[in-house]
């Protein structure tokens, strides 16, 4: 009995040992990972769906720039036409202030990184597309051409923003800790060879609206030749695009920018946005990385922040002001979808506003300068009050003397919903003829600035609406040299309005961004002609634009108002002014000023807040600290000079 049991035990021990050995042999297989939710880029090149997804991702880099706050910071802020708005987060871009906040660093690092990710994606596709087993060669060719174009475009953004930095046409395959610089010429060699390749490959009419087409490549080539000062080629390619029968001007500016007219004959290259909720709602998950365990977003644990790759065109909020906080309590205005939500990012310069002729130029009429009351409860009421403390609504002063009013008005609103609530005017007002809202500050009689911390709040004597003139909008504080105002009062350009969003929370909308528009081709041709000494031809091109922008179509009259009656009056400054009137807020300005060597000169002249700081070295942006910190050869690579 006992012996039997021992034998039994021995058998058991042996079988356990055997089992253990078997298990250990299976261990290596057991430990291999077989993820079902991870894909490699190589496997994606093998199917049409995968290829389309990869090529689609090469376009993503456009969506962090066009119609996005970061893109406007890099292209419109700190120029002669736009300065800092009240809620701007990137003072360094607006005023060239030397102290960079962490947020500014992160924002620029984010763009730097996104552009290089886009380049690497293009590099990967171009390096592998020829080996793809996909049989539809036409599709492969077209996509290869698109990606070539996109790489050229991204390198153009990089080289013009930061100068001769890192350039590679090969995909990254292993961890890099060093980087070398390349010359600006090397960048443009890649840009032109990519564009030439693209020109061969892409169709004239793409299979989907928004993909790269032959006219887009030609239009961008025109722009690139302008940057390289190859005037003849610039004009040649601009003319080619102009001569496509499908492109023509729309004579009504309001029609051109009408939301329902998003696709029109002036558009050459649209960045397509839609109102699909899944793509216009910037869901949290789109702003960063996903925790592989939870599938929930981890905000930028391994890449820089402040970037939004998804969502719609955010222009509707970025350029808007906070009319409902004027003055802080609101003056018959509450925020609604029809009027929009204000992010107050960039404020026009006085120079820019005065560039337009108020009567003859349709483009000035695109600006919103008047707000109509939409809310009864925030319309102030006449109120009978004995104490000066609480009677603010109804104590009006004219030249320091209280204006009496009919006591029967007690409790009545000052005006009604539907009446004018706020007006910005370019004409200076005679403040002695306007009511002053506040009782406790005597109007300075010596003409010195008001001591009011905020707006003095002049009211129109009849309508009782708030009126702000240019002198108040751009009043300079004698102590700081900055605008004394808090940068919340200014006319807004009407290029990005959208009242079709379904919730006021939407910061992205369906309006496409036009990266290239027909008018730019005329401006390129005009600029090339001027530089070739042919002012007359330049004038003709400008006249063509003006004929479509002047009220009543009198382009010659409009140009004359601006100081050009013929070719002799057209010079590079005239063209830059005209570019500002036509292309402001369309991601051109900073590059235009830099390209023409006018950045420092024009900013010093026209943008008082930035004028104090701007230097020649600001023609290149600072290299983000995140790049420098990661470099083992940081000193060799180096920051751009001056920073």
């Amino acid at each position, binding site marked *: 009995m006992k012996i039997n049991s021992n034998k039994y*035990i021995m058998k058991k021990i042996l079988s*356990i040992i055997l089992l*253990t050995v078997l298990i250990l042999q299976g261990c*290596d297989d057991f*430990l*291999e*990972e077989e993820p079902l*939710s*991870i*894909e*490699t880029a190589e496997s994606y090149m093998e199917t049409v769906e995968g290829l389309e997804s*990869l090529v*689609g*991702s090469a*376009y993503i880099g456009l969506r962090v720039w066009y119609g996005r706050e970061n893109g406007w910071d890099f292209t419109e802020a700190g120029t002669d036409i736009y300065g800092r708005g009240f809620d701007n987060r990137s003072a360094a871009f607006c005023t060239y202030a030397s*102290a960079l906040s962490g947020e500014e660093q992160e924002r620029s690092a984010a763009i*730097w990184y996104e552009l290089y*990710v886009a*380049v*690497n*994606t293009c590099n990967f596709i171009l390096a592998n597309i020829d080996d793809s087993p996909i049989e539809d060669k036409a599709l492969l060719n077209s996509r290869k051409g698109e990606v070539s174009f996109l790489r050229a475009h991204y390198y153009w953004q990089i080289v013009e923003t930061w100068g001769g930095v890192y350039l590679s046409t090969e*995909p*990254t395959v292993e*961890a*890099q*800790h060093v*980087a070398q610089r390349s010359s600006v010429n090397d960048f443009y060699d890649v840009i032109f060879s990519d564009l030439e390749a693209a020109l061969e490959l892409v169709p004239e009419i793409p299979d989907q*609206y*928004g993909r790269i087409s032959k006219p887009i490549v030609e239009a961008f080539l025109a722009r690139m030749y302008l940057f390289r000062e190859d005037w003849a080629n610039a004009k040649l390619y601009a003319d080619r695009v102009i001569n496509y029968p499908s492109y023509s001007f729309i004579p009504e500016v309001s029609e051109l920018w009408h939301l329902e007219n998003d696709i029109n004959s002036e558009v050459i290259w649209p960045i*397509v946005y839609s109102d*699909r*909720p*899944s*793509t216009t709602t910037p869901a949290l*998950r*789109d702003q960063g990385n*996903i*925790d*592989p*365990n939870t*599938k*929930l977003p981890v905000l930028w644990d*391994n*890449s*820089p922040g402040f970037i939004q*790759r998804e969502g719609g065109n955010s222009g509707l909020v970025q350029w808007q002001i906070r009319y409902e*906080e004027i003055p*802080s*309590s*609101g003056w018959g205005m509450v925020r609604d979808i029809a009027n929009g939500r204000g992010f107050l990012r960039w404020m026009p310069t006085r120079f820019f506003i005065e560039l337009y002729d108020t009567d003859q130029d349709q483009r000035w009429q695109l600006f919103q300068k008047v707000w109509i009351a939409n809310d009864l409860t925030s319309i102030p009421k006449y109120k009978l009050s004995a104490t000066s403390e609480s009677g603010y609504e109804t104590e009006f002063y004219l030249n320091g003397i209280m204006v009496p009013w009919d006591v029967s008005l007690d409790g009545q609103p000052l005006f009604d919903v539907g009446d004018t609530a706020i007006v910005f005017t370019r004409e200076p007002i005679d403040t002695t003829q306007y009511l002053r809202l506040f009782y406790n500050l005597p109007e300075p009689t010596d003409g010195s600035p008001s001591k009011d911390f*905020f707006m003095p709040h002049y009211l129109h004597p009849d309508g009782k609406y708030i009126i702000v003139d240019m002198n108040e909008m751009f009043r300079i504080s004698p102590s*700081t040299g900055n605008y004394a105002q*808090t940068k919340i009062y200014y006319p807004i350009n009407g290029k990005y309005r959208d009242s079709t969003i379904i*919730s*006021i929370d939407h910061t992205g909308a*369906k309006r*496409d961004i036009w990266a290239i528009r027909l008018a730019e081709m005329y401006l390129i041709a005009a600029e090339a002609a001027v530089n070739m000494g042919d002012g007359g031809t330049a004038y003709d091109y400008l006249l063509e634009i003006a004929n479509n922008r002047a009220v009543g179509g009198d382009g010659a009259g409009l140009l004359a108002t601006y100081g050009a009656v013929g070719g002799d009056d057209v010079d590079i400054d005239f063209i830059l002014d005209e570019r500002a009137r036509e292309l402001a807020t369309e991601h051109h300005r900073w590059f235009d000023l830099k390209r023409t060597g006018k950045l420092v000169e024009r900013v010093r002249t026209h943008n008082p807040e930035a004028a104090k700081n701007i230097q020649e070295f600001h023609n290149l942006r600072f290299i*983000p*600290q995140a790049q420098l*910190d990661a470099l083992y050869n940081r000193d060799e690579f180096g920051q751009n000079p001056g920073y």
Partner: protein
Amino acid sequence: MLLTVLNAFSQITVTGKITADVDQMPLPGVNVLVKGTGTGTITDADGMYEIEVPSGEALLVFSMVGMLTEEMSVGDRTVIDLIMVTDIIGLQEIVVVGYGTMKKSDIAGSIVSVKGDELLEVKTNNVLESLQGKVPGLDITPSDGRAGSGVDMLVRGKRSLQAESDPLVIVDGIPMGTKVDINPNDIESIEILKDAASTAIYGSRGANGIILITTKKGTAGEAKAYYNGYFGISDPYQHVPVFSRDDYVEAKINANRDIYNWEVDPDPISVFGSTEYFGYQNDVTTDWQDLITRRGHQQDHHFGFTGGSDKVSYNASISYFNEKGVVIQNDYKRYSAQLNLEAKVSEWLSGGTMTQIVHKVLDGADVSSSNYSVFTSAVRLSPMVEAYDSAGNYIWQPAAPNPRKSPLATVDDVEEDRQTRIFSNVYATVKFFEGLTFRSTIGVDYTTKRRGWMYPQKAEGEAITENGAEFRLDGGYTWNNILTFDKTYGLHHIIFTGVHEMQYNRLEPYEFSGKEQADERSLWYFMETNNLDYNEMSSSLIEKKLVSVLGRLNYTYNNKYILNGAVRFDGASELSSGRKNKWDYFPAASIAWRISEEGFMENMRDILTDMKIRLSYGSTGNASIDPYSTFGGLNDWIMYVEFGEQGSETAIQSRRPTYLAANSVTWERTDQVNFGIDFGLFQNRIYANFDLYANKTKNILMDDRVVPSSGYYSIIANSAETENRGIELSLQTINISTPSFKWKTNITFAASREEITKLTSGVTQDIANGWFVGEPLDVFYDYQKIGIRQIGDADSLYGAAYMPGDIRVADLDGNDTINDLDKTVLGSERPKWIGTFDNVFTYKGISLSVSIYAKWGHMVDAGAYEFDPRMYNNIIDLEYWTPLNNSNENPRLDASITEAPFEYTMRYREASFIKLRQVTLGYDLPQKLLEKTTISRLNIYFSIKNAAVLYSKMEKGLDPERDGDVDWPLARLYTVGINVDF
């Protein structure tokens, strides 16, 4: 042989009675053993025993858990009575070590054991929180006060940059993760393994320390029923000291003054928004913190049976815990059941199960605008606006135009979290022959979790309604096979342990969310009525596997010399492909010498009763990176690119190369040396443990930053190195011990210093991650605030935009500009030391325990001090700078700037504190009173948790333990409890 023969002729029968020193009551269950033989017996219910001994030469060994072991030579006596002395220090206790148990006196490593009773001293829903202050070197930051929240734990500081730092929690031999869902009443003991020699047996993840939890098992004997319960009331004991209504009004006006024309009063309508202006005129005062907090309560009921025969033993309990949080809508319920069952099938085969089933329900939305918690939102909201409209409904945006949502809206936001967890081990033990056993355990840990949310129109104001649900299946198994050989050969005692273990875990998260459901009452149960355009979904599968083989040898000679050695081989699936990367081995060795057992110490034993010197070395690993992180590949979130004409766009799901493949990621490895001395003086009335350790961690798993211009941002890699040194001391003294009055003191102290010794090659600082060679792991790196610019100060350093009243920071590099190079390491989150000072006074049945806890020398990023120069939000009641009050501490308020220069520097605060953590008054009803009832023991107590802050370096009395965080109010808990044994 000869001896055996002789024995047969001269048997002597010895009898006697054993009583306990404390109450002079008979002691049943005492082991009586003839030393050096297998002969033994146990005492009966009256404490009586009878044993045959070979001769008068024989030595009798009397032992029992909880009592000091005594040896008596028989001589010519036939009756030996004994009063056994309570073993205060527990040297004879059986301590759970990895994959086995050992006598405490035989341990050579650094292991701290905490018994179940001690855990119950602190009333908490989380058993780990009750370990705070009981174990030197274990740093526990308590839950943030939310009902049902967890704790943060660190054993001997942090050493890993990116991999997890939580200690591994093992319950009855099976890993349970960091969420420990066990009623503290069900716990027999918790062992904390600190040094590498002890943790190396767990190889992987042992580097962060191991917490072993053993649940209560049934004991053979009479069946017994028990009930433990308590009821507690909690109050938010701290009002965050933001500006009062009147001070807020004043501050807001001051923020609108021009510092050069201070006397000019700004116009009130400019100062206040429309809503605040109404409040200004009508003297509206609202205390938001009062409105959203309430008196909370907790109750815990735990009822069970225990007992068994010599064949089957059992312990079964059910419990119910309910907490009403101190913030409205925050409620937590936990239902749990536990069954420990063991059956002896035959002499050689036994088996059983240890099973826990827990169901938890957590209610309470924590949704507010601007990513603030509901409570922070209440702290920050203007105190001069109305909370409710005339109809009694809350106002959605009370401080409009400030878009902050009312925290009161949380009553309509629905968020509900339900989890059910089954944690069950089934095991079989085969005893081949005396000393050799094999045990195979399969442990299953399976959790389903569902979180649902619905934010209704009423609470969302202008925005549209949202709903969604998250569903997760998280489960896996652990299979371990342990072969143990335990044998005593004369003075030699050998234990060999061999283990094979496999672990598998899979997680399947699913989430769907949407907007605009047809009927809000359907919550997230009818999502097909949502606006389909908004529906989003995600799902994934994450698997993780670990295989281990280990062997360990423990050798003790004559209870004096202890020698241990172990080696473990581990393979982890998360690491790069290939045997070279996935597998590693982790050796450990330790020696100990019980000097007090030496003959030459005999004469000193009254003074130096016990003394042991320990030295250990061990190596442990860490592979806890995210699964698949070495793979590389495309982005795992979806981006869209659109093409097509307006109204008919197609969106293309776009994926691009985002992660670099990492082909040689292997184990992170920590080597640790530990030196320890344990000694007891005066019959162990003073007992001390002292440990000194140093460890070095290499191949640290971290995200290695690559150059962003390569199109990638980081790659997972083994690169950095850290060092960590520390001392730990625990001292237990019995100051007074008379039959009726006792005073015990328990002191612990732990100090450590951690340091990064190497980052990726060639780099001494990684600013982005905040890692600096020569500094601890969690540091604050920023500008150094040196004061406030005063009127007349010529500070060209900061440029023209800086005005009097702005923060001045040090120009550390002396280059006359303030830039990134002036940032410096200001301090570390890691305390210089942590100490506890606990006292227990017992008078007859009454006991009073007072527990003091101190944490010293650390810095925190105190969210409470978030500044807002515009006074758009309420801020801590600071003495701010004005032209009339030239504070050098805090800057000016200024409505025209969104952010004060360098305002973040105000948040760095030294946070040393001393806290009266817990006071408990208990009463054991005398046995005489209970004799006539069926109750065998009845204990009632009253306790106060978070009793008082005795000292805090932080201004304004903010609770220091929560690091000046205002996410959630910390509660003071008053508890009345009862423990009954039937």
